[in-house]
């Protein structure tokens, strides 16, 4: 539309083209293009969310039941049976729930992102748009469940009469971090999954494995006491360690002090994975329409 409006007389003699397609041209203006397609991004995310919550009554219920049951089991297993201590004076269920918020978001984002390309195969082979939109919008969909569980946390905290400290104001920052922490590996797995169609069998295992090496059911201070500060630093290579410690610091206040070196290491790994994920995705996305 704008192209014809801005046409000047000289255009009539030497046409000025808006778009050049040649090998490798997709690389140019990548981010600008992504911005141009922001409306599609929002609409796709809305579609996924509304389908998810429309399809089943369970849809919304599932987002509630799953974290609650998991929290109860973990509180019993780690808090009661194993007798691990909580962070400071914080009730064990709240400490578990503060970690489950980011963990469930992370794991559901990973698995839904990895399926997103295959699920939208017909879009990809019939319409152009920056492919990054698809996995990114599926991460946003998982975020809807996250918001529902956040409401649960508020309920849980008022049940235990556990008031948040001022730290809670920093929560949005950590939410941003978990978003990026999920997006990086999510993009990587998405691209791998398009290329190697049997990769999806590996994903549930990766997520299950991740749960064991991430302090969800127990406090990371338990790990620090056992491993010592030096080894704990390496434990933080797992980016979710930093994210979860951040969440607990924000939600539990001074009960759960933040281990800064470990936190920054997690941040660094998060950034690294994000860069790697985006660059691998960009490298492979050109071929998606040909192989999907």
């Amino acid at each position, binding site marked *: *539309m704008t*192209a*014809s409006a801005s046409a000047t007389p000289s255009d*009539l*003699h*030497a*046409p*000025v*083209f*808006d*778009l*050049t*397609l*040649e*090998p*490798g*041209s*997709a690389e140019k203006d990548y981010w600008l293009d992504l911005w141009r397609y922001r*409306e*599609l991004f929002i*609409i*796709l995310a809305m*579609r996924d969310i*509304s*389908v998810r919550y*429309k*399809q089943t009554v369970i849809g919304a219920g599932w987002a509630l039941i799953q974290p609650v049951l998991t929290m109860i089991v973990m509180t019993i297993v780690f808090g009661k049976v194993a007798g691990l201590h909580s962070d400071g004076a914080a009730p064990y269920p709240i400490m578990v729930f503060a970690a489950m918020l980011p963990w469930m978001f992370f794991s559901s984002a990973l698995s839904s992102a990895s399926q997103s390309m295959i699920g*939208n195969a*017909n*879009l*990809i*082979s*019939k*319409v*152009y*748009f920056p492919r990054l939109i698809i996995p990114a919008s599926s991460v946003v969909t998982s975020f809807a469940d996250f918001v529902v569980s956040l409401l649960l946390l508020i309920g849980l905290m008022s049940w235990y009469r556990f008031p948040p400290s001022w730290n809670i104001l920093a929560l949005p920052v950590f939410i941003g971090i978990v978003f990026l922490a999920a997006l990086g590996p999510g993009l990587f797995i998405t691209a*791998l999954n*398009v*290329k*190697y*169609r*049997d*990769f999806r069998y*590996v994903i549930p295992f990766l997520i299950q494995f991740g749960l064991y090496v991430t302090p969800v059911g127990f406090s990371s201070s338990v790990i620090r006491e056992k491993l010592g500060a030096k080894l704990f630093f390496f434990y933080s290579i797992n980016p979710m360690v930093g994210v979860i410690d951040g969440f607990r610091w924000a939600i539990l206040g001074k009960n759960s002090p933040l281990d800064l070196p470990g936190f920054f290491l997690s941040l660094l790994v998060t950034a690294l994975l994000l860069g790697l994920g985006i660059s691998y995705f960009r490298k492979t996305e*050109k071929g998606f*329409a*040909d*192989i*999907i």
Partner: protein
Amino acid sequence: MSSGTVISVENLGKTYRVSHQAERQRYVALRDVLADRIKGFSPFRSRRTASRSSTEDFWALKDVSFEVRQGEVVGIIGRNGAGKSTLLKILSRITEPSKGRVRIKGRVASLLEVGTGFHPELTGRENTFLNGAILGMSRAEIKRKFDEIVSFAEVERFLDTAVKHYSSGMYVRLAFAVAAHLEPEILIVDEVLAVGDADFQRKCLGKMQDVANKGRTVLFVSHQLGVLKALCSSGILLKGGKSHYYQRIEPTIQEYLDSFQEAPKAPVRNNPFIESIEIGLNRKGPGHVFFGEALDIVIALRKLTPAQIGINLSIRNQSGRLLALFSTNPHDGVRIPVQREVRLIFTMEFCCFSPGKYFVDIAVTEPAVRIIEELPNAATFEILPKCIGGHWPYEARFGDVFPQHSWHVAVC
């Protein structure tokens, strides 16, 4: 470059990597990649491993160049496999060219499918916005045209019903209505008009005509030669990965029809599997069969068949439309022996195609898994008119086919 050029295509080419043995599907299994890597390290590396990865570049488009001026309505014609879809995909940015350059001036919208992204669980209203956004409309634009779209599709009463409850006609109408209200400067349309009932098709064609009359540029792929003739001002014929541009549509169509006459006759090139194809030898000379008599197609296979194979045989009419597809199926007891010279005889007892010229495509398949080799236009045959049961000779104007049938009158 002439003035008013809105699309300029120079030496465009696109290759696809075709792998011969290892891949059964287009994608790769990680398991295979890892297994190959490991085998590569092991001392037991066999020759089989090496042959697994044999790939070949296939040029879907080789050297395509043309220019389209503003306001032109260009029909793109070509036989199946001539690269029409690939060309449209490159122009709509779905896939990147492997060589050459395309330059485009103005906003492009492409319609390669009706209802892309429609979700069955969502309502008509939601899907309208979704589909509009997918086709490149802004939210404000869709809002502005919403009423118009809905009345064009005639679905006012069902706007808040999930489209999974729609009849297929309603579904298609809504999908096309959204697409029809795109207002791009350049519209790329694949064969999507062949949907809906005749009434709706007429409406769609009218809409296309409107788009053209408003000075927009349209690129249009279709097998319906009549529609092309009515709608297009110029034409591009794709043939063997190359393009020929014509100022007017009529010579394009003529050239396209003529290209069928050049269909290769048996024996078939140096194909690894099929040695020759013969049709109707026992009747009125090779390639001629009387309407209503038996149609025999004899396919001679070479000895080289490595594994269980199947044959797909499809019959097309002169405008390239698929009329019938037959395939050998081991479940039906048709087994083609391995490593033997075989003559495969296909028989249709009552040849029900109306008089005219027909084309036979042969594909060698691994049954139910993949297509190994395709031979488009492997042979041609002509059906000659003949009176059946004392009636008039059946002609093409009565329809493409005339299957054996009967009438019963029951008096109530």
